[in-house]
Every structure is written in structure tokens, then in C-alpha cells.
């Protein structure tokens, strides 16, 4: 028998019944929406990754699982690691390309956006707004449009880039279709896609950095100047360290979006030449919607989630701060 005083006390939310009904009424549609279009697909994908499932096959009695869509346990994951089948090798190629893409995009993005943000922040008046708008414009442009525009720029015969190269007496190359050309051991086609992606994406981080720079109290910089620090020293020793919380956010978000890259690559190269720009989401898409290998695609999605999660945890540990200003 439990002592009456030890009974758990139910916390009173302080809301009246009508208030609770109101809260329920306004949140229920959103909850339904999230459940139908986020939670349910996640649950379904988690189940599918243990099956060799194709919606084209009738399968078993429960949701088409079993029967012609057999349970395979962890077989997909084993194949992804050690399998020699075409899809296993393509998966590993796509994972490697995705890692190269993400780890190239992040430093390049930071190298462009951080100094540029500092420069724009130092500009006074309306010019600052104009610069911010100009650099942000590509970010609000359709990815397909951006991909097509860069496709024209990279066109080997009529493209702008090769026209410039011809003008200065260089040898034009097939930027997006030559599997033999490499730079720093990475396919030129992948570099070309990275450049297009950076052009479209860096506006987001630029705006975030500008906002963060505006939030740094001037007293810190002025104190450093009084102590004889040069502008470069102020930027490196004062501004950059104080931007650490923002850097963490930018790194995590940039890494996330880089791992999810799909549309720009599908339009520009469709994974070619010779799978050198074949990234993980494209591989998942092809398996799921071209070849109806939903089980394999679900397992690939799970791996993508785990990889992104691990990298995010690593970034958060590396860049976390325990101070505020």
C-alpha cells in the first residue's frame, strides 16, 4: 500500500478546459500532417530496410511485406560494406563522392563567406544592403535553373568558360563529361558541380555571418585596437573566436545540406561521367524510384542518416562553447 503523500502529483498546467481544447484544436492538424508526411514515412523506411521490398511485387498479406518481398535482416548493410554487386559498388562510390563533396564544400564555403561577410559588414549605408541582396539572390533561385545555367557555362563547345579559355590560348575541356580529367585526385566534373553548388548556396551563410558580426559588441574590437592589434589580428583573434556559436550552426547546416545534394547534380550530370558525381541521395533516388528497390534505398537512407548524425555530433563537440556575450 502506497503512502498517500508519496503519490505522484499530477502537475496542473494552469489551463482551463476551453484553453486545452483550443490548443488541441490548433495543434492537431499540424500533428496529423507531421505524422502522415514525416513520422509515417520514417517508420515505413525503418521497416523496409530489413526487406527486399519492391512495390511492383504483390508480397505478403501485411503491407506487402514477406512473400515475394522477403525479410533479409541486415543483408543490405552487409552488402553495402563487403558486397561485390553493382549496387553495392555504386553505393560505396556514392558514399565516397558524397563525403568528398561535403568536405570540399564546407571549407570552401567558409573561406568565401566569412571574409566576404566581414568585408560587407565593414561597408556603410545602403551599399551593404545592396551587396547582401546581390549575394543572396542565387540562394532563392531554383536549383534546376541554376543547374541549367551552369550547364550552359560548362558546355564544352559553346560554353562561356571554354570561350574564355580559348580567348587566353588555353585548351578547352569537357567539364562535365570527361571521366579522365582530375584535379587534386578528384574528378573535374565533381569540382565543376561543387563550384555551381557553392555559387548557389553561399548566400545563406553570408547573411548568417553578417548578422552574427553585427551582434559582436564593438567594445571587444576597440579594446584590441587600443592594445595595438592590427585589423587582421582583430579579425582572427577577436572576431573569429566570438563567431564560434555561429560557426557551429553554419558548419552543421552546410554539412547537412551538402549530404543531401541531389537536384543540381541530377540536372547537370545525372551522376556521370562514369559515376564520378554519383552521390548518395541520387543513388537512393535511383534505387527507390527507377529500379523500385525500396528496401535497399531505405537501408541507404538509414546509412546517410547515421553518417550525418555522427558528423554533426563531432562538429558539435569540436565547436561547442560554454560562454555567451
Amino acid at each position: 500500500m502506497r503512502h498517500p503523500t508519496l503519490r505522484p502529483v499530477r502537475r496542473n498546467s494552469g489551463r482551463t478546459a476551453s484553453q486545452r481544447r483550443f490548443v488541441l484544436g490548433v495543434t492537431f492538424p499540424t500533428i496529423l500532417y507531421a505524422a502522415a508526411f514525416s513520422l509515417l514515412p520514417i517508420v515505413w523506411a525503418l521497416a523496409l530496410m530489413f526487406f527486399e521490398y519492391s512495390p511492383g511485387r504483390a508480397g505478403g498479406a501485411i503491407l506487402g511485406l514477406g512473400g515475394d518481398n522477403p525479410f533479409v535482416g541486415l543483408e543490405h548493410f552487409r552488402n553495402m560494406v563487403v558486397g561485390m554487386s553493382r549496387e553495392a559498388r555504386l553505393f560505396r562510390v556514392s558514399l565516397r563522392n558524397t563525403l568528398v563533396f561535403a568536405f570540399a564544400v564546407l571549407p570552401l564555403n567558409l573561406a568565401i563567406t566569412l571574409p566576404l561577410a566581414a568585408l560587407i559588414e565593414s561597408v556603410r549605408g545602403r551599399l551593404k544592403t545592396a551587396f547582401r541582396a546581390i549575394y543572396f539572390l542565387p540562394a532563392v533561385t531554383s536549383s534546376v535553373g541554376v543547374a541549367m545555367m551552369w550547364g550552359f557555362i560548362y558546355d564544352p563547345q559553346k560554353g562561356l568558360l571554354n570561350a574564355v579559355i580559348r580567348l587566353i590560348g588555353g585548351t578547352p575541356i569537357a567539364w562535365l563529361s570527361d571521366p579522365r580529367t582530375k584535379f587534386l585526385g578528384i574528378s573535374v566534373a565533381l569540382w565543376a558541380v561543387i563550384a555551381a553548388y557553392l555559387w548557389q548556396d553561399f548566400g545563406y551563410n553570408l547573411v548568417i555571418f553578417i548578422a552574427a558580426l553585427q551582434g559582436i559588441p564593438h567594445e571587444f574590437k576597440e579594446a584590441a585596437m587600443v592594445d595595438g592589434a592590427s585589423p587582421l589580428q582583430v579579425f582572427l583573434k577577436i572576431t573569429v573566436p566570438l563567431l564560434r556559436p555561429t560557426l557551429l550552426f553554419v558548419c552543421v547546416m552546410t554539412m547537412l545540406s551538402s549530404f543531401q545534394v541531389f537536384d543540381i547534380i541530377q540536372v547537370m550530370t545525372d551522376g556521370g561521367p562514369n559515376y564520378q558525381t554519383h552521390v548518395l541521395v541520387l543513388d537512393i533516388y535511383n534505387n527507390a524510384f527507377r529500379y523500385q528497390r525500396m528496401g535497399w534505398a531505405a537501408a541507404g537512407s538509414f546509412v546517410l542518416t547515421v553518417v550525418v548524425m555522427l558528423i554533426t555530433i563531432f562538429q558539435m563537440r569540436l565547436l561547442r562553447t560554454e560562454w555567451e556575450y
Partner: protein
Amino acid sequence: MDRKVLLIGFVLLLVVSLVACGPSATETPATEEAGAAETAPPEGAGPGGISLRMWAHQNPAFNAGYQALIEAYQSAHPDVTIALETFDYDTYIQTLQTAMPAGEEADIIQLFGTWTSEYAGRLAPAPEDVMTVEEAQDLFYAAPIGGFIVDGVLYGLPQEFNMEYGGVLVNKTLYEQAGLPYPPQWETMEDVLRDAQALVQTDETGMMTVAGFHFTASDPASFSFLAGILQHGGDYWNADHTGFTFNTPEARATLEWMVSAVEEWGVVDPVLFNDEENWVGQAFFESRVAIGYIGAWAIAEGRANYPDFPDEWDYFYLPPMVEGSDPLFVADSGWGLAVSPNSQHQDVAWDFVKFVAANVDNARQWNIASGTIPAIPEVAESDEIAAAMPWVPRALEILPYGRYLGSMPDRDLVIYEIVYPHILNTLQGVETVDEALEAIDAEANATFE
């Protein structure tokens, strides 16, 4: 109380969604559905009428041909209304693959014959009073009808002879500029390569600006490869058609010929001219290809998409790849029409399919509208076809040598993701002939697993 309501609502939503998203676990036999159609009132029909939906992939010439025949059928059957719904190619495949398991496909489905074996379990067999297998084999060429017959059952009627082998678009203007005799006088493939070599144009940096002979897109490269194997006396199927045999001397000889066309003759730069870059159906109509290897279906599409193309051009057929051989080749079953077993008016749907595909006059009308080679010999040999499509009589000599490609577990995967990429890799110099053949053989056979 509120939490209970929320929880119950949430659980209900999950259950309903799971049931709605999942495929039906049991297949209703087509015959039962047909029987039900006779007794059940027509669903979605207008007052006293029957409404059917038809799905097709987006192709302006094809769709115009369908629309004209739909209107003709509706005029003859005022109680029937047929709505044509079209999808771009990739979306169409995905729509079929997701809608058919859910039983939500249209009554009449445009189907690529080679896909039939993948979908046979979800298609209505043709009733005998519409057409028997024997009647179909008598009416149509072997290659187009081959795909629509699965395990001795007829699942649809073909509308075209989808011949990707042997046909080329030839730019007369470029021929004349190069000082070559026109029309081309080709006895052997060496004659073709000689012309093509003279037609190549490059810029000041050596980059190819006009390909002499563009054979490096997916369809021509793959179907030339398969034809070459046959013409060398080999086969890419094993004896009982349960596996592929791509790593053979015949396949090696064919691939080596392709490599020599690129490396020794220099008729095309496969890095600049392939499926992704300068696709033949586009590059030809932009004067960047002199001889463009592509199926005759590209003619109508080219005319529709490039009405202002200034160059003079025509369509010809190549000599056999192997000197002295018959022009043996394989062909897909091509586009045709099938009927959903879930249609409540299968009898009307089949009547329409027969009206479009088996009626000689209507088939001719559709082939002329779509610019495709007829699937019915009587239509292909008609004067009207010869007048409207002068390249068809040129094809008549080789059409009888066409064999059905064969039912594969996943035709697009084998042709477009396995055979073609390895051929292209070899031509681009990133794989050797032996590496490519080994890879094609292993990967294609893995599709049976």
C-alpha cells in the same frame, strides 16, 4: 481525455495511412473483374455513358496520334468517353510502378512491349474474342509482338516496330559542304566510316564541333553491340534464356570494331557526343552531327521540336556491321496498348485497343502521325506509308531479320545502366574491352538474382 482523443486520432491516422499506402495483398483475377464489369453499373460514366482513362508517356507526335483516334472512336461510340492523360517518361515509369500495385492505374495503358514481362501479373490478358496469340503472331512482325506475349499469354497489342538498330539521320547540307556524293552509297560499314571521317569538323583547338558518325548514345551503342554479336554468329542469351553471355569472342569483335571507329577512324569524340552531352536527337538538328544513329521515331520528334532547322536531311539504313552477314538485329517490342484488370469496362477498353492497334487503317494513321515504323507488315508495305515516310520502304528489307530482344528482369537496367555505360567507358578510354565485357556479363547476370 484530450490526450486519449489525440492518441486515438493519431493511431487511426497511422492505420489508415498504412492501409492506403500498402499494395493490395491479393490479386483479383482479371476474369472475375471482367465479370463484375458486366453486372456493376459503370463507375464515373456520364449519364448512360462509359468513361475510360488512358495513360501514355509525353510525346507530342504520339499523343496527337492517340487523340485523333480517340476522337474517331468516340464518334463511332457516342456513349464512350476516353480521357488521355500523359506523363513525362521518367514520371510515367514511376507512376506505373506505384499505381499498378495500388490498383489505381488507368483503364488503357500505353506500355513498352519489353516491359510487359515485368507487369504481366498486373495486366488483363487479351480475351480470345479480341485476339488470340496465333492471330497476333500472324498479324504483327515477330519483334513487336514478342514482348506482349508472356508465357503464352497475350497482354497487349503493339503499335510500332521499335527499331533502334541500323537507321541514321543524314545531313545533306553537310555532305554537300564536304563534297561527298549524296545520297550516300554505302555497301559496307567501312564506306560509312570513310564518309563520316570526311564529315568531321573541329575548331582551332582540335575540339570536335561536328561528329561525322554519332553512334555513341545509349540506344545505338547498345543495340549495335547486340546486333554485332548476332551478325558475328554469336548470341547474348544462353541456350535456355536464363542468363546472358556477353563475354564472348563475338562480343569482343563487336566492341573492338566500335573502339576502332573512335580511335582509328575518329568519326566521333565519345566524351563530347554521348547521351548526356550532345545527345544525337538534339545535336543532329543543331547541325552538330552529320550522320546520327537513332531510331526512326526521332524524325517526327525532330520535325516537331526543330521546325526551323535549315539543313536538308533524310533517313537511311546502314549496311550490316559484319561484311557478308545478314543484317541480323534485335529490337524492343516497342510501344503498344494494354488494359488494366481493374478496369470496370475491360470489354470497351479492349475494343478501343483493337480499334487503334489492329485496325489497318487506324494503325497506319497512328504510325504516320507518330513517325514510327508500323508493327503490321501490311501497313508497313502500304503506299500511304511509303508516301508519308519514305524511309520505311528502305527498312522493309531488313525488318524480317529483326528478333525480339528477349524478356529481361529489368530491361532498362541492363541496357541503360549496365551495357551502355561500359561501352561508353571503353570508347572513352577508361576501361579496356576485356574489363567492359567481364563487367557487363557479371552485372547483367546479377539482375536475374
